[in-house]
């Protein structure tokens, strides 16, 4: 209570100009555990989000290890098929809703106010709420594993009627968890939009904003449009399961394919929710280490916006085999492959930013470069999957598994790791161990390719996804893939050490501008970033100097 009143008093004081007369604990965080429970500070909440995402990443990763261990050899060795399905389902749900999305919201919390010269997020109390919903939703989701009948075992896409009539009782807990995750995401998105629109430094125009801020602004609109659709889908599931409706049951006049339409109307924008902020991160990092302004800033903004718009009109390319009329298939094929145009523009812009730069390859840059190459490979397989007739052979095989892990692991996750290495010195004031971080990078980047590249071959050779056991001709590549999987999984132990070591024992960074050629308002505040920043907004001159996309003419 006391903090709230004090904060309020501070605000009043500031408005009244009597701030100087009053010097209590205003600039420091509260002590102890309650600091984290009650915090409304964007940096604290950002930290909470990122640690939450990291622990979810480890839990989801452990499930992936169970999956790869079972698939190491033909035969049923470790887990029964029903539990295997629970693992694939929860692995997907936890990674999407527990790891990747919260990690990006965490980055947004830390960075957006710092990058637009704002004091904090626009809605700090809602910010606290939207974070603190997450651990409960996550725990509820995981607790289903311990319920009678086991957790959800119908895949992260939870197609009806497998997820309605034929699902275990714990599905109702899953539905509630998804609702809560949705609340959290929507509140986070509203906060991002309100912050960017209202809290920018008065002299910062939209086209002065760093690309990370731009991509997040667009992502937030995607979230607000897509998450309620997901909520609708799970609510219909809930009433189908418990209240006698037949939205997805043909016997009552419903249609199971309608579930897929609703799900993917959320699901396709969702995959861009997970990749657009990644584009933003990479667009910050590459210019820094190429020592050159980002090429084609405005085309990057327009490309991001057109990807976001297109993402709403391509959903049924996940459904080419559901018996769609041919006109539908043709339309969704054309619309889908169109997305590769703006996506290509982005890749070309990054490559051109590197061209004739003066490059160094510190750890964040290594991850960003790996992102560009490996995400592009995922983009190629995406283009192949978009060709409706070819999709007949790819659909629901390991080719798809390879594709979306290339865009989500070596895409989204790599960009998050890049972002953490890039901004961590600013956050905690210490430099990470560059040598260890480079060893970790090469370890992870090699093992992740050993893990996912052979899955292209498995899919083309005919191995369906979501199977606990397979025919003998798939044995070799599965074993290689599992070995890569274990190695990639183990790399996160080293990553944990590097991060903790940096925070606790890292060499303190003296410069405000941690990377000599980095531009952006976040590099104008002290290192480590003080608890409160930008009490006074940056001047127009500073904003223009720090616009990474404006070159030195």
């Amino acid at each position, binding site marked *: 209570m006391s903090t709230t009143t004090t904060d309020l008093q501070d605000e009043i004081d500031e408005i009244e100009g009597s701030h100087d007369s009053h010097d209590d604990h205003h600039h420091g965080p509260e002590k102890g555990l309650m600091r984290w429970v009650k915090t409304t500070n964007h940096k604290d909440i950002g930290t909470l989000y990122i640690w939450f995402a990291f622990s979810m990443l480890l839990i989801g990763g452990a499930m992936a290890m169970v999956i790869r261990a079972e698939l190491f050899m033909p035969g049923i060795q470790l887990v029964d098929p029903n539990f295997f399905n629970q693992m694939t389902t929860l692995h997907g749900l936890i990674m999407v809703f527990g790891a990747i999305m919260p990690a990006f919201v965490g980055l947004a919390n830390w960075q957006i106010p710092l990058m637009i010269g704002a004091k904090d997020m626009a809605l700090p109390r809602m910010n606290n709420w939207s974070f603190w919903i997450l651990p409960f939703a996550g725990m509820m989701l995981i607790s289903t594993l311990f319920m009678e009948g086991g957790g959800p075992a119908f895949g992260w896409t939870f197609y009806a009627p497998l997820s309605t009539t034929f699902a275990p009782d714990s599905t109702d807990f899953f539905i509630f968890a998804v609702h809560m995750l949705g609340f959290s995401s929507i509140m986070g998105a509203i906060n991002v939009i309100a912050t960017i629109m209202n809290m920018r430094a008065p002299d910062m125009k939209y086209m002065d904003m760093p690309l990370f801020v731009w991509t997040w602004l667009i992502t937030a609109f995607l979230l607000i449009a897509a998450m309620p659709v997901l909520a609708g889908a799970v609510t219909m599931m809930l009433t189908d399961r418990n209240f006698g409706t037949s939205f997805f049951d043909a016997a009552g006049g419903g249609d199971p394919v309608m579930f897929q339409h609703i799900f993917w109307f959320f699901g396709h924008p969702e995959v861009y929710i997970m990749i657009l902020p990644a584009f933003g991160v990479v667009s910050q990092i590459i210019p820094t280490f190429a020592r050159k302004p980002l090429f084609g800033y405005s085309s990057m903004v327009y490309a991001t916006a057109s990807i976001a718009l297109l993402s709403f009109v391509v959903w049924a390319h996940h459904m080419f085999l559901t018996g769609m009329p*041919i006109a539908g*298939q043709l339309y969704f094929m054309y619309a889908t492959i169109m997305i590769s145009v703006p996506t290509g523009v982005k890749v070309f812009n990054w490559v051109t930013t590197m061209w004739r*730069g003066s490059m160094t390859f510190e750890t964040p840059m290594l991850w960003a470069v790996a992102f560009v190459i490996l995400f592009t490979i995922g983009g190629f397989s995406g283009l192949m999957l978009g060709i*409706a007739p*070819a999709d007949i052979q790819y*659909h629901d095989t390991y080719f798809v598994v390879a594709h979306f892990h290339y865009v989500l692991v070596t895409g989204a996750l790599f960009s998050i790791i890049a972002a953490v290495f890039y901004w961590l010195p600013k956050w905690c004031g210490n430099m990470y161990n560059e040598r260890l971080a480079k060893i970790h990078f090469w370890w992870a980047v090699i093992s992740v390719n050993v893990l996912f590249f052979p899955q292209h071959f498995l899919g083309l050779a005919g191995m369906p996804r979501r199977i606990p056991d397979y025919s003998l001709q798939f044995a070799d590549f599965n074993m290689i893939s599992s070995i890569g999987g274990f190695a990639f999984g183990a790399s996160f132990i080293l990553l944990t050490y590097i991060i903790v070591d940096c925070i606790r024992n890292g060499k303190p960074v003296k410069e405000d501008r941690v990377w000599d050629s980095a531009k952006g308002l976040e590099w104008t505040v002290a290192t480590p970033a003080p608890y409160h920043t930008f009490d006074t907004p940056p001047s127009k001159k500073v904003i223009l100097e720090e616009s990474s996309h404006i070159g030195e003419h």
Partner: protein
Amino acid sequence: MPSKSTFNDLSYFMKLTTIVNSFLNKIKNISNLYLLPLFFTPQLAFAEFGLNLTEGVTSVSRDIYGLHMLIFWVCVGIAVVVFGVMIWSMVFHRKSKGAKASNFHESTAIELVWTLVPLAILVAIAFPATRVLIDLENTDEADMTVKITGYQWKWQYEYIGQDVSFFSNLTDVQKKATNDSATREGMKHYLLEVDNHLVLPVGKRIRFLMTSNDVIHSWWVRDLGVKQDANPGFINDAWANIDEPGIYRGQCAELCGKDHGFMPIVVEAKSEADYQIWLGEQKEKQKALAAASGKEWSKEDLMAQGQKVYSTNCASCHGVTGGGIPGVFPAMTGSPITTGDVNAHIDIVLNGKAGTAMQAFGKQLSDSDLAAVITYERNALGNSVGDIVQPSSIKSAR
């Protein structure tokens, strides 16, 4: 824009040529052995190794294969250019080599080029893709029709107009091999062998109708170029005209529950003459089955037959020993149904239980098989009710 100096600097170019050449020589040895045959002659030695799609045995599967290779090479081409430029700049434009950063950061002309060129490539791909799609969606003028129904976890095949219909299950030997590596190693088609093949004639235009009894399944045979979802309550279609006799294997491709990985598909393509012989045999078989349902059975025979029927149809949910899966599938042992009123037992096996995974086996099994399995469930799996059920009581209960 890049300044002229880079392009005019021959030493850069020479250096790159040497690097690229030595690199190419290195990978040449490997690729001669391994990579190139993979893409140029996929149906030869390397097909067994399973790296790429195969051409298959229908015009549709060949078209899809052609399309696949076309997009693949387009992607390879773009990758070579994009990654080439990227690797070039990473090698030569680094600070440690004294590279000074340029400051160019905008060019509307270039942006236009790399918007329009990819667009043109996409349009070029869209034409053949559209042609193939229109062809494979046209299921008219079929010579024969097979209706395929997905069940948890087996397929039913009905030859429309022929009075031939049967189920196709993963064989028991295969099911047991999931826990037994020795048997597995000796098997030629582990997890890909079924008790009843879907036998089809070559050189006929066959229309498939797909539907499902419970959840969504997807019928996929790669060599036929057919994958189509089987949705409960709706019918989808696809077609194939198989070129050559042979055995073609596939699997269910849509997650359909616990045993999704254990409902393979085996298509056996025969010459028209052999197919007709097979069809005749099937009709005889169905008559014999009907006759079996007409007679009285001894308890021993019922129990023996019942065990077979149980292990094929019931064991995947209710467990080989009748234990079920708590919270998902009820146990057989000591259950009020298997130890209670026989008529209630017959009713649930015949008609299933709405809103659950319990199927209506009345549509799937003959009177004698139903009588056998119900007798078995009441007198084995830890139960000993002692009564027996005759096919005649099933008939009257229908």
